[in-house]
């Protein structure tokens, strides 16, 4: 795997790339991400020209549409010293796939590579950000046990497994691992629409494993996984889900107030 770790950010201003899923379906994760970053002394800007990183088009084989989104996204973000995303899969799209998609255009490819180096998934950013600006934590934190779902692109393409866990542990969360934290939840973007029964079976298996961990909440850094797992939890024979399902940003924000 080529080294795609982002370089240390030098400025305290970051661009937040919310992702189309957060923007349209899960705004609370975007709000939590903004508040969390500000609490860490980061100035968050939201380039309003952003819409979608292009991953749904790329994954479904609609390459020209994907490239249009890729170029537009680069143009929205490249003037910032750092870009933060509350999504592992969209971060991977920018950091890994952007330069491949623009292989045939050296000028754009270079712009993509530059952006890759300055793009961070949220917990990745928190891990490298200077923590001396961290807020003082409240005296006693409420007890919370969580099991973390490693979303596929985040753990396999970006290698980010310890960062989200460390971020949770730093707020006093007790981590209880499920049997296969990195087993795919079944979302897969259009897969969950194209083959819903299989996607659901995969989601239910993940939820069972999460429940068996004994944790009070299932945490993921990917909005796609989150929405899919919540849907699987809702339709489980009418019984209420045994554990909460939350975005990493929401949990961290709540526990650092």
């Amino acid at each position: 795997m080529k080294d795609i770790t982002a370089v240390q950010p030098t400025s305290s201003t970051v661009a937040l790339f919310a992702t189309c899923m957060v923007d349209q379906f899960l705004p609370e994760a975007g709000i939590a991400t903004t508040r969390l970053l500000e609490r860490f002394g980061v100035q968050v800007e939201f380039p309003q020209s952003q819409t979608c990183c292009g991953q749904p088009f790329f994954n479904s084989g609609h390459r020209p549409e994907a490239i249009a989104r890729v170029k537009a996204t680069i143009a929205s973000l490249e003037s910032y010293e750092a870009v933060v995303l509350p999504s592992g899969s969209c971060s991977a799209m920018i950091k890994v796939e952007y330069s491949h998609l623009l292989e045939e255009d050296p000028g754009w490819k270079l712009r993509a590579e530059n952006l890759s180096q300055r793009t961070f998934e949220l917990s990745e950013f928190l891990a490298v950000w200077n923590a001396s600006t961290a807020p003082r934590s409240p005296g006693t934190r409420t007890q919370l046990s969580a099991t973390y779902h490693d979303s596929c692109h985040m753990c396999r393409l970006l290698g980010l497994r310890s960062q989200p866990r460390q971020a949770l542990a730093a707020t006093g969360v007790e981590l209880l691992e499920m049997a296969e934290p990195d087993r795919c939840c079944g979302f897969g973007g259009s897969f969950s629409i194209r083959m819903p029964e299989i996607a659901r079976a995969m989601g239910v298996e993940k939820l069972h494993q999460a429940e068996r961990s004994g944790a009070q909440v299932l945490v993921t850094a990917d909005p796609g996984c989150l929405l899919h797992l919540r849907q699987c939890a809702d339709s489980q024979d009418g019984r209420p889900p045994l554990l909460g399902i939350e975005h990493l940003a929401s949990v961290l924000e709540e526990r650092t107030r």
Partner: protein
Amino acid sequence: MTTTVRNFRQTARIALDDIRLQNALDGATGRFRKERDQALQELPDAEALRDHFKVVRDATLADLGAHLREFESNALKAGAHVHWASDAAAAREVILAIARRNGVRKIVKSKSMAAEEIELNAALEGAGFEVIETDLGERIVQLAGEPPSHIIAPAIHKTKEQVAELFQAESGEPAPAEIQALTEIARRRLRQVFLQADLGISGGNLAVAETGSLVLVSNEGNARMVTSLPRIHIALIGIEKIAPTWDAAAVWLSLLARSATGQPLSIYTSILTGPRRPDDVDGPEEVHIVLLDNGRSRLVGTKFEEALQCIRCGACLNACPVYREAGGHAYASPYSGPIGAVISPLLFGLKEYEALPHASTLCGACLEVCPVRIDLPRMLIALRQASVSVGLPSGNEVRAFRSAAWILAKPARLKWVRWLLRVLQTPFKRGSRVLILGFNLPALAATPFRNWQRKHGRR
């Protein structure tokens, strides 16, 4: 019949509802995965070995013609016959001709994916030959009249009760539903067949160009029987299964069983170089090696060439969360799982297997475990692109993606389309989901995040 998404889903649904099969799939794939991980950890340098293997396979395919010619030359020197088959029909013809020429009646077969691929059994039986599968799992599915459902564990979907029924129906003798007893019955019955057969047909795990040797691995010992007892042995092997040297073969063998089942080596590794020599005690008098192309050569030099590096270990099946739910039959191909999703369309037609590139969440678990580090997710996306290029997706699907691209091109557009969709979604809204036209989609949030940002932040 093409494997459409609907067909795939239909067959998968049967597998999803079969609790026993789900447990069997989970158990077997889980065990294989765990043992594979342990076996690789036991090596001091498994990652370096995989990297090395990748370089070897890549270099081999880059000059495949030369290595095949070297293999042929050495195999001929050792006294074997070498046949080249451009496609499945040619391979079947060669094998039928050998069987006819030698007045063969009874044929024993050991496991061969290539033989499944060319539908050899049907052709042989159609021509009046008796063909008996000897790998226990293959024999079970043969008796059941079903295709195998996993590369390594073909009868993973059968219970011991079902096996007992099959054995009973075949022999007319009672068979207890007890695993040790059933194994003993199979051993006894197949032993008779081995001793009577006049032709043995096998596949080949790899072929070593340096000495013109064929290598077959097995745990049961049936590959040894099939290649030692009958007077004639025919081996069918894909042209991509060439190891140029014995060093390459050793790397291959070091990774094959470890990746498949976690064994350091299979119980038996048979290295066969030509027919028996004049002073040998036993062995076949005639050895025929059939080199099968059937679409492989077309991939060399393309972005899909990497798919030919596969050594058929099955590790990707055991890792794939989609395969582990859907089972092998849904793929409707001799090659299922992640590798099957890539090579079935490539070898047998994108239209014929249009569902398979979509039978994946692109999670990457397959790439993680592949001993040759084949980038299957990359090729799945490339196949999806190819599907779009040749117009396979429905008009509705294409329009949906094009519309989405158009909407997302301008935030202002997104704003008013969103407003429209919010209105339209209202009657179909169920909690946080929208149920419309058979689809279950997330409901649009009341206020998009960008609105909050406009109020809260800058820019």
